[in-house]
């Protein structure tokens, strides 16, 4: 089975270690290589890209490394590809 790694136990996304096809099963592992859960990929997800481990509501925080990496711009179901189409940065440009 294809694997995805969860960098922190509080994360709601995992990084896919080898690209997975739509409908393929993904074994989500922790940093000490233990199985956390199996999930089904909602669409094709490439190596290095993220998959939702839990469903994330619109406006909720997307968490990786136990920290915010942005806000969900719409509802993200479990198994969905999580990327620029459904996440927005929380960092504001502070230039003059």
């Amino acid at each position, binding site marked *: 089975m294809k694997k995805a790694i969860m960098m922190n136990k509080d994360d709601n996304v995992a990084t896919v270690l080898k690209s997975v096809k739509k409908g393929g099963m993904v074994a989500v592992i922790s940093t*000490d290589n233990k199985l956390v859960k199996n999930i089904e990929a909602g669409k094709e997800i490439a190596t290095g890209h993220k998959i939702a481990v839990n469903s994330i509501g619109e406006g909720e925080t997307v968490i990786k490394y136990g920290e915010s990496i942005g806000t969900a711009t719409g509802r993200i179901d479990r198994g969905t590809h999580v990327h620029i189409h459904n996440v927005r940065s*929380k960092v504001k*440009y502070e*230039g003059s």
Partner: protein
Amino acid sequence: MHFNGYQRENGPAGTRNHVIVLPTIGCINELASEIASMVKGAVPLLHNHACIRLGPDLLRARRTLIGIGTNPNIHSVLLVGLGCESITAEELAEEILPYKRVEAVTIEREGNYNSTLEKGVAILRELVKKSSEVEKKKCDIADLTIGIKCGGSGSVSAIASNPATGQAADLLVEKGGRVIFSETAELIGAEHVLARRAVDKAVREKLLNCVNRMKREIADYGVNILGSEPTKGNIAGGLTTIEEKSLGAIIKGGNSPLVGVLEYGEKPSSKGLYFMDGTTQASQLFLGMFAAGAQIQVFSFGGGLPARFRGLPSYPCGLPVLPVIKVLGNPEDIEEREYFDIYAGDIISGEVSVKEVGKSIFEEFFRVASGKMTITESRAGYRELLQLYANGLLM
């Protein structure tokens, strides 16, 4: 826990025992190089300092040169000077002397090039001979200071080589050692995370000031970095936001409390994890780490097309006195494994855990500290001029 190293009269033990020839200024590189070439085993550290540096850059250059001379990996120092330079051999010698033997020759004092050459060679022969008499002894792991840098980052290094390096950093801090990581530009977007780990308000403010200054400088340059980060290549690789990219970079320092924020080349005053306000340019940063007292450097690599420099076996090639442990993160680059000391790609193939690779990096600290040659050290002699970091006006 111990390693076999070189105990020093004042300060931590070294992992190497080099005798260096250190020019006070770039103008005198030719003479320093010639003196070193006449004595087997001596290491010339030629660099680009010039009198055209002002204010903070001049102070930083002075701190860097003193830091090079006082690093534990150095047995003794021969300074080579002109006599007219902004940072003189006499003032450097005075700062280095409490830590180790230091000698100086200058053209002004000796009269001309040839007489300085002759005297320099005679002194250097004696220093090298003395260095060969030093016996290695059992040294405490708490003596170690490790510098950490990443390069060619991507979504893969952010989950393999960087977190594994961070695990090794955490283990060393637990055992009483010091870890320094840097690259101020890479904190942007994740500075609040590191700031939360600061041990007190002063450290937190110093850290945020570094990042805010950098943001201001970028804005003053007319560049909107937040609009272009992550880059197209990063996005194609799976990185979504600047905070995700920065989190993947700062994880290389581990998760220990942040004990202090250092200037470029400044030495940590205690044990634990430190952040150095510095550049992302590898050779300049390594020099800053060495000046801060690092006896070993880790270079954690991402992979793929944006990081072709990872395949250059000795990159960066300026500092033969600082052993560099190179970590390869991407299994797609496995054909280049021979250029690396540690392979973290098995994390991506799901065969080993981040924690296991972290432990093997930590164990490599001991082997390298006790004398094991790193890949970079084992390569032949291509060297580049050391670049002392400057970011201000050059006259």
